[in-house]
């Protein structure tokens, strides 16, 4: 029997091999990225006595899973307050950011102002002035406004990083809207402001939504400001509340800690994940052009 060439099999085998090699390289990264979240999730629904056993494989349940940790979270801590605070903070921060960043981004992108580019860069640079330099003087601002220990202080402070970032983001967005639709609106009798409100803004809705998402996700990344300005339990946002109120001296409520952390962390991570490319383009766009 004549030896058949092995060639016909090879594209498939080659692809399989390539995939195997790639996955082999990716598995350590996946493991290290995902394991902590998996471990937090398992911890959140484990019974207390199941947590502290080193004689059995800890990755799974040896006692039935329980909602007790969530129960403690909702009934014996101010978790519900923290969620309400976080929602309220996000709402107001988003509103302030939109009211300031939309007009600013529009003006920088569209109105051919002298120095527009430098002004834009200047505003974006303030995004890079870190909280760690600003939090001490801002503590004075917060106490002058009589907002210390209230979540309102965070509404005042968070726009210091959401406005620069979103202005920059929206500036890029408005640049992509064709001038023609605006001009057409003006032909139809709109003024410049009318054209912005009635034509440009609706077309830019995805950009505006992106700005709202980032007002929320960037606010959720803060820890320092809330730690420095809010110390009353009922006024805390979720990340600070979970991190500070579920540790009493040497006692850690690990189950509830993980439950409270993931309950808010996972939705934020998913949202951020969906908009991550926009974040990366936002901050690196300049270098990639």
């Amino acid at each position, binding site marked *: 029997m004549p030896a058949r060439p092995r060639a016909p099999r090879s594209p498939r085998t080659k692809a399989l091999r390539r995939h195997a090699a790639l996955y082999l*390289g990716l598995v350590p*990264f996946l493991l290290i990225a995902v394991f902590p979240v998996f471990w937090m999730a398992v911890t959140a629904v484990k019974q207390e006595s199941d947590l502290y056993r080193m004689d059995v494989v800890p*990755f799974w349940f040896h006692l039935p899973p329980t909602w007790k940790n969530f129960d403690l979270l909702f009934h014996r801590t101010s978790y519900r307050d923290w969620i309400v605070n976080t929602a309220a903070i996000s709402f107001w921060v988003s509103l302030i950011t939109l009211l*300031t960043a939309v007009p600013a981004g529009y003006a920088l992108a569209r109105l051919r102002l002298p120095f527009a580019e430098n002004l834009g860069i200047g505003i974006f640079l303030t995004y890079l002035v870190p909280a760690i330099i600003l939090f001490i003087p801002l503590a004075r601002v917060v106490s002058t406004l009589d907002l210390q220990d209230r979540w309102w202080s965070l509404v005042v402070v968070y726009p210091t990083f959401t406005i620069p970032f979103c202005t920059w983001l929206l500036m890029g967005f408005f640049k992509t809207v064709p001038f023609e639709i605006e001009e057409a609106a003006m032909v139809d009798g709109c003024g410049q402001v009318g054209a912005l409100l009635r034509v440009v803004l609706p077309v830019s809705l995805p950009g505006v939504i992106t700005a709202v998402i980032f007002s929320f996700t960037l606010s959720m990344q803060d820890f320092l400001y809330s730690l420095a300005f809010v110390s009353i339990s009922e006024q805390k946002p979720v990340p600070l509340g979970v*991190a500070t109120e579920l540790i009493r001296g040497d006692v850690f409520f690990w189950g509830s800690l993980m439950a409270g952390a993931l309950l808010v962390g996972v939705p934020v991570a998913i949202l951020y994940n969906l908009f991550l490319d926009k974040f990366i383009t936002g*901050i690196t766009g300049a270098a990639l052009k």
Partner: protein
Amino acid sequence: MAEVPGAPTPGTCPVAVGERVGVRFRWRAPAARRCLLGYALLAPAVLYVGALVGVPFLFSLYLAMSDATVGDPVAGFVGLENFRAALESTTFHVALRNTVVFTVGAGVLKGLLGTTLAFLLVQPFVGRRVVRALVVIPFTLPIAISVLGWKWMFDSQFSVLNWALSRVGLIGGYGSPDWPVWLGQPSLALASVMFVNVWRGFPFTAIVLMAGLTSVPTEIIDSARVDGASFLQRFRKIIVPMIAPILFIGAAFDTVFTLSDLSIVYLLTNGGPDGATEILPTLAYNTGIRAGALGRGAAISLFLFPLLLPAMVLLLRTLRRRQY
């Protein structure tokens, strides 16, 4: 919405003959009015940021040169005393050294891991989107929240990491001398907080690089291959020069994020054991807010500025390149 070329619109200035149709209406309003509108639209954002970033920044310079405390709002001018006191204290030296070790060490690791991951992820393969979405989780989780997970994993007695290490025989059981107490032993503690920073940051480096790698035109690489360039040559002569600027951008942003973050150290060790993980942000927080010495704290946090400056200058220069 028919646009009739040349049709006069009420209230417009006459349009110069021969001007491109697309440009015409942008110049409808006189330049002065357009500018006025522009600056009016800019004003809220500029004023907000000016009042709550610009003014506080200047105020922190003033605070750093005063003896202000939380309890005593009337501050006296003390010149550079706070800076001198900081430079003379051992705690500050340790914090400064740790900050540099932390930032540089973690930065190099993030660069290496992120680059490797980026090169894996730009390959086409089945399930790439899912893998990418999973692998960026550390960066997208709110930082305080993921640090809590790590605190549990680094638990002195019930650490799941120790369980695994002990099971495969790398360490003994609980209580044996080689049982690592991640956050309790000075050198391990610094390594642990750096590790969490790397864990959070490497996906960021990877996706920034991916954005850069996909912008390297494949034709250039292909034609180099046709011309007989080896993989190493292609890597050194084409890929590295093209991605280096993007790697710098990623590293610069990451440095800013790392230098300004206190939550990892604050929540895991709060600077301990015995100052082994104290970094400038935690020292500034503990001095300025906890101990109430606003002036001292402001001075310490300002020492971060020279460390941040190279990153900011680099970013400023690349942002300027956008001018066209």
